Each structure stands twice: as C-alpha cells, then as structure tokens.
C-alpha cells in the first residue's frame, strides 16, 4: 500500500518515517517507534489507555492517523520524566498514593493528568474527576488516582507537605 512521508517530534526527538495513510498513531508509536508505554484497551475511543499529548492537547492516539500527526509535537509517557531520569511529580504521586494496580491504564492516565494540570494547575476534586473521565481504570476505583493528581498539583505548586 502507498506510503506517506511524515516528520514529527516525539518526546523531544525529531522523527522521520514513511507510513501507510491508514496507520493509527497508536500503532505507529508502539510498533514503529517501539514506544510501548501507551496501550490499547478498546476499539472505540472510550478507555484512554492510548492517551498521548499532541501539540498541547490530550488525544486518544487510537483515533488519530499517524499522518495527521505530521509536523506535530508529541509527548508520551516515556517523555514525561526529566531528561536526567528524575520522575515527574505525577509519576511520584501515583506511586505515593497507590494510584495504580495493574498499570495498564497508568501511562494514559498520567499523560492525561499531565495536560490537565497545565490547563488547570489547582483543580478541585470534581474538576480532576471530570478531567480524567475519558480514561478508564478497572483496578483502583479512581479514589487514589484523584489523590495522586492532587499530590502532584500540590508538589508542582511548591507545597512541600503533600496529602497523606
């Protein structure tokens, strides 16, 4: 099948590739770039396990073609930590607050929360719940995910004592 040339930035690195126009962004990231952090959990854009950051917006990469990401800037879970490997406040928060169990939704959830906290650095609990409502979790019941995001918001706001 015909291939289309695309160039984009993924986690700060320039990427050039030729892809089939029908290839989904999630398959491009996972199968071609071997960024296997974002996952596939459904076929209908409900679960959000494939969430990545695309030009400053959270998108479900199972509903975006790779060719639509031409010239875009993408961040996946693999690009959330600092270049020196230091964990992002969200990554730390999810561990501290027991915000994950099987870990399958976690990359999408953290990537979504990463954008949420830039849109709204000091969200209320209701705003967090609404803000992550495009991301499904089957293990945690969300309560500790909310706490994890609050932990990160507090930490990012410079508050030293995070929630218990």
């Amino acid at each position, binding site marked *: 099948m015909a291939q289309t040339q695309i160039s984009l930035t993924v986690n700060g690195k320039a990427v050039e590739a030729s892809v089939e126009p029908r290839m989904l962004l999630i398959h491009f990231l996972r199968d071609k770039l071997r960024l296997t952090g974002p996952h596939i959990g459904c076929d209908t854009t409900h679960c959000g396990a494939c969430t990545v950051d695309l030009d400053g917006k959270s998108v479900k990469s199972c509903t975006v073609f790779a060719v639509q990401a031409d010239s875009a800037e993408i961040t996946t879970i693999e690009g959330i930590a600092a270049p020196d490997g230091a964990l992002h406040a969200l*990554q730390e928060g999810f561990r501290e607050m027991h915000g994950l169990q099987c870990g399958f939704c*976690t990359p999408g959830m953290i990537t979504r929360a990463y954008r949420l906290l830039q849109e709204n650095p000091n969200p209320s609990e209701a705003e967090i719940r609404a803000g992550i409502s495009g991301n*499904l979790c*089957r293990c945690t019941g*969300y309560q500790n995910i909310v706490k994890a995001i609050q932990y990160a918001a507090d930490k990012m706001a410079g508050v030293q004592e995070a929630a218990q």
Partner: protein
Amino acid sequence: MNDTVLTPEQRTDQLEGIGCKRKRVEDVRFVQGKGNYVDDLDLPGMLYGDFVRSPYAHARVTKIDASKATALPGVVAVLTAEELKGVNLAWMPTLAGDVQMVLADGKVLYQNQEVAFVVADDRYVAADAVEMVEVEYEPLPVLVDPLKAMEPDAPVLREDIKDKTEGAHGPRKHHNHVFTWEMGDREATDAAFGKADVTIKEMISYQRCHPSPLETCQCVASFDKVKGELTLWGTFQAPHVIRTVASLISPIPEHKIHVISPDIGGGFGNKVGAYPGYICAIVASIVTGQPVKWVEDRIENLSTTAFARDYHMLTEIAATRDGRVTGLRVHTTANQGAFDACADPSKWPAGFFNIVTGSYDFPVAYCSVDGVYTNKAPGGVAYRCSFRVTEAAYAIERGMDILAQKLGMDPAELRMKNLIRREQFPYTSALGWEYDSGDYHTALQKAMDAVGYAELRKEQAAKQEAFKRGETRELMGIGVSFFTEIVGAGPSRNCDILGIAMFDSAEIRIHPTGAAIARMGSKSQGQGHETTYAQIIATETGIAAENITVEEGNTDTAPYGLGTYGSRSTPVAGAAVAMAARKIKAKAQMIAAFMLEVHDDDVEFDIDRFRVKGNPERFKTMKEIAWAAYHQVPPGMEPGLEAVSYYDPPNMTYPFGAYICVADIDVDTGETKIRRFYALDDCGTRINPMIIEGQIHGGLTEAFAIAMGQEIHYDDDGNVTTASFLDYFLPTAVETPKWETDWTTTPSPHHPIGAKGVGESPNVGGVPCFANAVNDAFRFLGSTHISMPHDQWRTWEAADRLGLHT
C-alpha cells in the same frame, strides 16, 4: 550503619514486613511506561493472527472459501477446522470436562464464534484478509433464554453430544442439559418449609456480565522447529496450568513448553481459561515456523471470552414469625452458553455455590443447580470472586432483605438475629462448609455505628412521608449486606484442576550477601505480589523487603503453581512463601548457633537476627548468617540457604464483611446517586493495608458497575448488543462513588500468618449492597424485588410500574 544502635522498633520498620504500608515495587516501571505486557513483545519475523467470526448465533457452516484471502500479499496462512483436524485440535477440552470447538466444525453456536484464523505479516493485512474469507451459513433456530433450554421442543444445540446421557458431572436429562448439582438435605429442608410460620420465594437473576480487564486476552506463540520447543507468552492468570494443558493436547512434551506470563493488565477471572486464540496461535506458529501474535480486540473480548454469572436463582427462605431463619432452598438455572467452559475446580460444576447460606445460622438447607446450553458465548468465570460466590451472596442477601420486608423487620435487625455467633466457630454450615473463624456481630455493629444507622432510618422515614405528601420526588435507600467469602481453593481433598491438586508454591533463595529471590506459583495481574510476598518473607526471615526480588510467571523458573484467581494468592501461595521462609529460618538457626558456639536451642529469633537466649548482646544477623551459609556451615550440613514449599491448605479461608450504602433516587429520571458507601472488611492478618484499601476500592467499583449497569445482553436472535464500551458500562471517575473503608481483624486459625485474602470480597459484598439500597428505596411502596442492573432506565421503569409517574 551499626545495627546495634537501632531500637527493636527501628529494626522492625527497616524490614517493611507484614503490616507495613509499603510502596509498591511494581510502580517504578509502570509509571514510566516500562511495563512489559504481551502486546509489547516484538520478535523477529513475527506474524499476526486474526479471526473470521460468525455473524450468526446458530447456523450451519456450509462453505468456507479462503482463496481470495490467501492470495492477498502478506497473508501466510488461513486455518479452518479442517486444518486443525490434521493435528487433532479442531476441538479442545474445557476445564469443566466439556469440549469446545476451536474453530467452527460444521456449525456455529454463538455470535462471533471463531470460524477461521488468518495469519499475515502485518496487523492491517490480517484484518483485510479476514474480510476476504467467504463463509456460507445456513441459519438455525436460536435459543438464548436459559429457562426455555430444557423445553421438549427446544432446538438441539450440541449435536456432538445430543445422544449422550452421561456428562462430566453425572446424568443428562435433556439434549441441552449440562449437569445437575445438588447439596444439602432436601427432605429436611422441605419439612422445615412445611412447618414454617413465614416463607419467601423470589426468582433472583444475576445478569450475564463480563470481567473486562483493560488489557484483553492475548498471546505470542513461538515454535522452534529445530529444538521442537514451544515458547508461549500470554495473559495467563495460571501459566503452569496452561503449560500442562498445552502438553496434554499436543505432541509437545511438557519440558519443551515454556509458558511466560509477563505483566498482565488486569484479569478479574477473564484470563484463567484457555481460548481458541491461544490454540490457533500455537498451531499457526508450528505450521509457519514463525512467531505468531494474537491480540483480542475489545468486541471479541466482551462477546467471546469468559462471560460471568447468568445465574437464575429461585430463592426460598423459611423463618419463624419472630425472624429466625429455619430453612433455605435455592434452585438455580445456570446458563453455560454453547460449551461448558467454566473455570471451576474440576469437581465443582457450580463452583462453591453452596456458600449460599451466607453468614446465617440455617439449621437446614438444600440447593440444586441445573446447567444448560444456549446460543451464547461459553465461559462462566469467577469475575472478581471465588467460584460462584458472588451469585450466592446476591441470592442470600436479597433474600434476607425480602424476608425482612415480609416480617416487617429492619434488615439489619434480621441479620443480627441470624448471624453465626462468634462462639459457633469453627462452624459447619448446612451445605457442608467449615467456616474457619469469624466475629460477625462485632463487624455489623461497628458498621452500623460508623454510619449512624438508626439516624439514617429516621431520615429515610421522614423522606418517605415527604414523598407521600408530594414534597419531594426523591427516594432514599439504605442497603445493608453482610457477606462471607470462601476463598483459597483449595485443599487437595476436594479441589483440583484436571486432576492437579490446588496447592500453591514458593521457592526462596537467600544470596550470600543476604539479599534474596522468591519465585512463586501464583501470578499477579495488578495485586502487587512483588511487594507483598516480600513483606511476608521479611517478617519471617528478618531480611528487609527491599532486598528481596519476587518473580512470577515463568514456568521454567517458578515452582509449579495453580495461579491467581479466587483470592487464592494470599491464602495458598502466601502460606507457601511463609512456610518456605520458615524452612530457611530453621536452617539459619542452626548456622547461627554454630557461629555463636551454642546449642541450636540456645538461640532465638529476634526480628532480623538470632541471639543467644538470655544474652541478647551475642547475636548473628541474617546478613551474617547468609554469608556463613556459603562458607562456614556446621559440619555435615549442606551449604546454601534456600527452600521450596508446596502448600496444600487444610481448609479454605472465610473473609467476611459488613457493608452499608445510602442511595438517593430521582423517581422521575431513574437516576441513582450513591451518597455514601461504607465497607468493613475482615481479611484476617493484614499484610499491606495500603494495598488492601486499594483492592477494596477497586472491588467496590466493579461491584458498583455490575449492580448499576453492566450487562452482556443478547437479543432474541442471539445478537450480542453490548459488545463494546459504548454499550457495556465501565464507570468513569465521575460516576464512581467515594469509598469509606474500615476493618476488623479475625485471623484465620489455620493459615501460617492468619491471612485470608481480600481482593474479591468487595465485589461479593458490594453487589448485593447496592442492589439492596435501590430495592430498599422502593420497599415502602410494596416493591419486593427489582432485578439488576439498576441503570437509570430500569430504575425509571421500576418507578413507573409502581405508578409513580401518574
């Protein structure tokens, strides 16, 4: 650091042992996207498999033409039942003693059944080729209602066994009959009903639902033709069982099969069984000589692998006028779908459904279960519960509420009156279980006090009056449930899978520097085993948890185990790891005594060391002992410090709990708001309270999902109408209630550390609690039983039936 300056408390804390809210080891990789799940695997030359599936629920397959598909560039093979017959794998045995088609052999029996398996060098090409396989069907009459399955003129579904009068579990009395299973004393129970003051009888149906972990079922099969060896990576909750099954149904000897379960993205029972996808991937790899990946999509997952429930329970309770229960009788029709592929211990075709007497002191009881075939997908797994326990809990807990209503009693008061008393443990139930321990009244009283139960009932009464006066359109429901789980299958005397006793296992090796690795027969799917087993070893041996690696899922390195489901990891594998640790400790004691130049009996264990009795300044730390084990063992002793334990539990464990839910229902929209949910769990000794709380949050959320919306629904033609997340309810953070958790601790008397298991309790207790809350809201209007799921539409309909919209 000098250990001697630390206090005993500091030394204990350093271990991060039992009782510590230890942060999870697993999280470090998961939060960075560095988990290792099956679909992350990429092998050189790997091919992709995809299924052609039946659009019909019941039809003859008259022709399969794969010529166009095989001509498509990139397509390597198309398998049908004909190809599989060549290796004797067109059908496969199920765990329940039945057989199941791997690929349609002459007919299809449920919608989306596997008809052909396309193998291509690319996912997209495989999907294209699926569309190009031409299949001709001749539709047959469809049977979806289990209550009609045994009517005389019901369509014949299983032509392969239509004349068989004997099934895996006894006589068959109809061509769509699978088994009859009975427990208890029927005559004595009938007699109790005959002289009862009060009886209730209600058909309590538990809808078909699905575990739906976020990661679907998937595998990669790689057959090495030179060595004749198969490596199979997959989402297996029980990898050793998969290896044995693979060996039994293929010519490959078991030592040449390597099964690996990497990280698993949730299981909840979905990943216990063996599915056609696994068999087809294996055969395709053998045929092509290349690795073959099979990844189920969500529609395939919801419509073909491992449904749960579909139990229809005619529930009767007999009682005295003052509210003492005198008998329980339950007849269940179990819809098994097209093949009996229940993942139960072999001798238990209806699982442990005979826990249906619940937490109450029934003097007599009788239950029977008839399994039937229908044109629905096979399965019948324990979705976040021990085998058929949530069904039983739903029946008895709804039944108790209905009885309370008939008696004019408060549901909590009725429960208090009938709960098994503390002094009755160990308690033998009328249906044959020996409950190991419990303190039920304390738990229920604590729950009632915590929520201010009496005040809630007053508020409800006031709201009901206001509703009658037309001042509000909102009803308030208070749901109470008290559950007893039965987990930790199980003793070899009554539990096996394919003849293999349901023990579990652990192997611990202490390295010379005092670090350790433990390998387990269980397999985490998110439960945090890498964290919690290390805590057990830490407390038992005095080696800090941070110095212990826990490894699971590789059948070449792990000791044989039966896997993780039915909350059996802590009761069985958790016991095995404690026993293995004790073997190590016993050897360490001898080494320490030798090093200290005293008799073995003159040293005693103290947190992280052995010390001389009466002289605590003389001691050897476990770190020192570990080093000595490799260079200075006593004469005649073998060097090294390792142990294996295979643990055959003497009994099940019986976690219990008391849950209370407060719901507010808008009768005009049917919307139900969960105002409050309080869950008290008693899981015996608590290994990691943080993980326990997380498990309870998750289990309650799944209970909420089931009670309030989940249903795998079929129309009359056998079309599954809820096969995607568009229609199948998975709650988001917005709908999910906030959870309050609490506990009491009644250790199991027979488990080495007193632990009972907890992951599934909240689902077992939660489902009836939500259902009771919704039903309780309508109770004062004369409503007896509204069936799950309590979604907005059904709740509106219930209100409508009661004339509330006129």
